[in-house]
């Protein structure tokens, strides 16, 4: 009895070497966490601090002379709100259409009896590795007459081959063949089976797909930049681009007026970062595990 207890004690107690390992491990990871968190934290405190203090470099660890002026300013900016509205519209459209297109296709692709299944697989895999490039893509869009319409941003985004394969893998591993066979024997046809048996069991993958597509569309700017000329159609990211970046690209002169401009402009920047990231950051903790799940589903090689 005593010997067993002794062995147990030995197994549970860490050696000094291990203790050092764990400590160093924790410290390094902690530093990493700080590196990740600090920039985000700084944006928040800078947004609510007096711009002069920020400019003077006083705001480093905590806000100074708290003010909501920046938030008030951004409320006035029509283009931000228009951009917000547009992005919400584009994202909602993208999510709905992408689910309608991706999920049934993923189901069909997972069925061994799909005529030409191998051919379809190859058809979808090739674009993952080889594409026509930017210019031909633009030309296609313009010959379809979609330039300067919202469809130029929504349509290309509604099918990602990566997501398609993830859906296929999900169906292959989560829906037992015998269930489908039972339904077949019961007399259900393929559409019926999809609607009444498969879809109710697909909540997880639909959620993951919706999130992936939503985040993808919410964060995108480039297609909007090259296809949209009408400013009223600009998504949020494009508006942000003007606010956040345009001002940095030219060599500035000197002088007080420019400083003033920068002072206000920067405050606006901090606030706009927060305002545009609010939905993502709010939903993020709840939604994060679904994303991670999605990656794991996808990593079971399809």
């Amino acid at each position: 009895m005593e010997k067993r207890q002794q062995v147990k004690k030995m197994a549970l107690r860490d050696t000094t070497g291990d203790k050092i390992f764990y400590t160093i491990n924790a410290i390094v990871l902690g530093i990493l966490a700080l590196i990740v968190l600090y920039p985000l934290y700084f944006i928040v405190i800078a947004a609510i601090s007096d711009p002069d203090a920020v400019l003077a470099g006083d705001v480093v660890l905590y806000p100074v002379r708290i003010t909501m002026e920046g938030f008030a300013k951004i409320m006035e900016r029509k283009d931000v709100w228009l951009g917000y509205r547009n992005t919400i519209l584009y994202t909602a459209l993208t999510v709905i259409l992408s689910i309608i297109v991706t999920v049934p296709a993923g189901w069909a692709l997972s069925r061994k009896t799909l005529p030409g299944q191998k051919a379809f697989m190859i058809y979808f895999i090739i674009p993952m590795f080889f594409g026509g490039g930017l210019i031909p893509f633009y030309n296609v869009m313009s010959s379809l007459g979609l330039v300067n319409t919202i469809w130029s941003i929504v349509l290309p985004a509604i099918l990602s081959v990566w997501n398609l394969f993830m859906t296929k893998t999900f169906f292959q591993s989560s829906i037992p063949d015998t269930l489908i066979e039972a339904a077949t024997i019961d007399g259900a046809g393929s559409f019926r089976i999809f609607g009444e048996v498969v879809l109710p069991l697909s909540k997880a993958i639909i959620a993951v797909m919706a999130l992936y597509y939503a985040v993808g569309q919410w964060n995108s700017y480039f297609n909007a930049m090259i296809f949209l000329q009408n400013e009223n159609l600009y998504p949020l990211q494009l508006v942000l681009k003007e606010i956040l970046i345009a001002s940095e690209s030219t060599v500035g002169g000197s002088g007080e007026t420019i400083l003033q401009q920068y002072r206000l402009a920067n405050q606006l920047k901090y606030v706009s970062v927060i305002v545009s990231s609010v939905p993502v950051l709010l939903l993020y903790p709840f939604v994060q595990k679904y994303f991670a799940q999605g990656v794991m589903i996808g990593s079971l090689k399809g």
Partner: protein
Amino acid sequence: MSEVVLKGLKKVYDNKVTAVHDVNLEIKDKEFIVLVGPSGCGKSTTLRMVAGLEEISDGELFIDGKLVNDVPPKDRDIAMVFQNYALYPHKTVYDNLAFALKLRKEPKDVIDKKVREVAEILDITQYLKRKPKALSGGQRQRVAIGRAMVRDPKVFLMDEPLSNLDAKLRNQMRAEIIKLRSRINTTFMYVTHDQTEAMTLGDRIVIMKDGYVNQIGTPQEVFNRPVNLFVAGFIGMPVMNFFDHCKLLLEDGVYYAEIRGVKFKLGDFQQKALKQNNAQPCDIVAGIRPQHVTVGEGELSAKIEVSEMMGSEYNIHARSGDDEVVMLIPTVDLTTDVSMGKTINFTTRPHLIQLFDRETGNNLIWYDAESATNNAPVCKRYDF
């Protein structure tokens, strides 16, 4: 009339692997047929061909006199119970049972009546509102059976329905299935790898191995009259004892089996049968079931290696030469010393010895060449 006829049914997969070779079987109306065999023998594939879940590569399938090779499953008037139940997880028990009827567009009150009837028979009425994940294994199994029952099919197919249950539950459910059988009078086709299930449930048993049918017969027939070594070794618990390097001798018109140098004069029935078959002296494998071994007397001997106390009897594992011999001794019998290492005598009554040709494995008495050629092998018939 719900008879099922399999004629030369064959299944070949794309990669040229033949899973099922030429199954010929005539299932009578309301008969309970069990397909049994080790993993990979083709029994499930055969069942699935009858269900319409597997394409029939060759041969013909008749249900109720109609050729159904190309008929989709829902039109074959069959129902199937799966090994893992395959219940719709998001539907209630009621909806699970009602689904097929809904698809047939039967009126609501008819559906309700049928569902409740079946739930009553299977004693699951109190679960009608629950979902499968709230049920135990045995309850789920009953729902799966209920789903099949509700369709009132001509043929009831069951694919290893008890394999997912623990031993105790399995015994219970086995009894339930027998009771069920008397309730629903229809044709059953049942697949299992467990020979006990096969023996207790089946009117006739089809024993398969590597895609071939080895024997078709009643439980009595396959137990007492196995047509080859495989069937003899597969059916019966504990497994039959096999003695290699034995001989069939013919002296002065009388047949003897020589086991380990000990001559056994074979019984009357065996003499007549062997004579009719014109059996010649040859090398054989002799088979004696553990139940048929007489312990403590006789000229054969074996050294005890292990004795298992099984409750009402001992299972003695002994060794005679190269062969393991299993014998059964009731615990009430205290006269024999059964400790490890002891040598023990044994013998048997000659008419209980099974004789197998050493080269082909065929039973010298029961192997029927004609039915074997027709791929519907049964034990040979003698009329004396």
